[in-house]
């Protein structure tokens, strides 16, 4: 049972090594990491008790920025695309954030949804610029100045995504423990006291909103390069719902849960689609139902319960909380 305590580290190791043993899996895992980054953005906002039903707009905006960059500068580097994607989504997050941070709960969620649908409609209708529903092709960028073959590039992209996911986890974890992060949590519990501490709840939420947009944007750039094509579907409301779904699956409000949820979601989706193509959504639905009914704190909550049952280093049992 002691192994349970090391489960996260073991899983990270397995994810890192798996593509070496099963090369085709790295595409799926890269998609999971890209979505995990976007979900991490949703998790940041969940800390303030706010659910965004439109975060796919940042995912899509960043993906399209990669497509436009590759169209304009064929030899652009992956680092430039990732950076440009983050700047694009961050700027967009700052502008949209100025409006949405004035609202809370269902109004916050719906306003995000509305903005995302505006972007979706623009991407869909501006055919001559965005390619409409056909989308845009994204060429293979150079990797630190090197032109890599497809397989090598996919491997490099996977490990880059893994590294970025790790860095994002670390940063968000630090952020949430900092006074800013604690003030963000305080928006959920007592906004009145926050204001009477001289802290602007809107300003705190705006900072978190921009951070969450940047994270979603980073995921969007990765997915664009990984898939080689971007379509308006990246910004559709179903995608936003998917991010919220994964956040709950992983354990709402937890940093590692974002990636645990994304990995489980992508793997279930992949195998369900392969083995039961017509009913894979139903299988995903049952998985979420199971999580909500039997492990309401998601995968991370499930893990914590297991770790609490497992004997500690001196053999004592910690109480379940």
């Amino acid at each position, binding site marked *: 049972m002691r192994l349970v305590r090391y489960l996260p580290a073991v899983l990270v190791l397995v994810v890192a090594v798996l593509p070496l043993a099963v090369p085709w899996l790295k595409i799926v895992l890269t998609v999971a990491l890209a979505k995990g980054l976007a979900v991490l953005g949703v998790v940041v906002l969940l800390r303030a008790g706010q659910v965004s039903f439109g975060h796919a707009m940042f995912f899509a905006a960043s993906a399209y920025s990669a497509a436009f960059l590759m169209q304009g500068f064929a030899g652009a580097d992956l680092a430039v695309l990732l950076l440009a994607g983050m700047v694009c989504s961050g700027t967009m997050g700052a502008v949209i954030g100025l409006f949405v941070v004035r609202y809370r709960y269902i109004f916050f969620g719906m306003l995000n949804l509305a903005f995302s649908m505006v972007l979706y409609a623009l991407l869909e209708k501006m055919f001559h610029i965005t390619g409409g529903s056909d989308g845009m092709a994204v060429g293979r960028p150079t990797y630190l100045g090197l032109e890599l073959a497809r397989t090598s590039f996919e491997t490099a992209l996977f490990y880059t995504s893994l590294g970025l996911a790790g860095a994002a986890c670390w940063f968000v974890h*630090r952020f949430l423990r*900092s*006074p800013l992060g*604690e003030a963000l949590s*305080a928006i959920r519990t007592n906004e009145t006291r926050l204001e009477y*501490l*001289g*802290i*602007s709840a809107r300003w705190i939420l705006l900072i978190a909103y921009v951070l969450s947009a940047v994270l979603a944007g980073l995921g969007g750039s990765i997915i664009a390069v990984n898939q080689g094509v971007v379509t308006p579907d990246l910004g559709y409301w179903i995608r936003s719902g998917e991010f919220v779904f994964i956040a709950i699956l992983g354990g709402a409000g937890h940093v590692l849960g974002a990636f645990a949820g994304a990995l489980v979601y992508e793997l279930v989706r992949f195998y369900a689609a392969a083995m039961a193509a017509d009913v894979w959504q139903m299988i995903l639905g049952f998985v979420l139902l199971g999580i909500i009914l039997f492990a309401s704190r998601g995968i991370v909550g499930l893990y914590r319960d297991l770790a609490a049952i497992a004997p500690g280093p001196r053999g004592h049992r910690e109480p379940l909380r």
Partner: protein
Amino acid sequence: MSGTLLEASNLHISFGGVTAADGIDLEVFNGERLAIIGPNGAGKTTFLNICTGYLTPSAGSVRFGRRDITAMAPRAITRMGIARAFQTPQLFHDQRVIDNLLLAAAARERTWNPFRPLQDLPERDEMLELLELFGLAEVSTQMINELPEGNRKLVDIAVALALRPQLLLMDEPTSGVSTLEKFRIMDLLVEALAVQGVTSVFVEHDMEVVKRYADRVAVWSAGHIQSVGPPDQVLADPSVMRDVIGI
């Protein structure tokens, strides 16, 4: 007592047909403890709400030091040096006692480094000393929702004092607690105010508390001030006893 710290002039505000402030004029002097008494609905909390920016008066002004703070946002007024403790403690219930104070310290010092954990703020010792002053050091790591009501009230006041305000406004700091607890809270409070040199205004219903702890008392009645003065003088007035206490 020397110098005026807060000055309310000709405040008016109504809610529908109810007038909560009808030409309120009041000065709060540096270093004093001013008690506000009056029957329910007289406009006592409304006065605090106006002074802290929660409500905007339809007429009149509030000056803090040399600045007009009428209609300023609560956070702006807080940053200027007016803190508030509430009748129902306003705390972050899913956080620990010490975290509530540290967040106040971070707000005061504007420490927003995203890489520095709240726990590692240099003001941690200062906050523990403040809790010690209130006899709360032992519960510093407890969650707010695990505390009894009396201690929550004290934490609410400690959070306000963590801002190092010049003026502390408190709405019924002893309501909802036992008589013994009342005097314990007030003793600790008065000591903390003296240590920090904070001027205070508190709304109170218990005349014993007012007599013991207030330097001056202002009597509210239907949106206006009936009388202001030292407690022994004001509370000796039969009309005050009749209107406020009902005897």
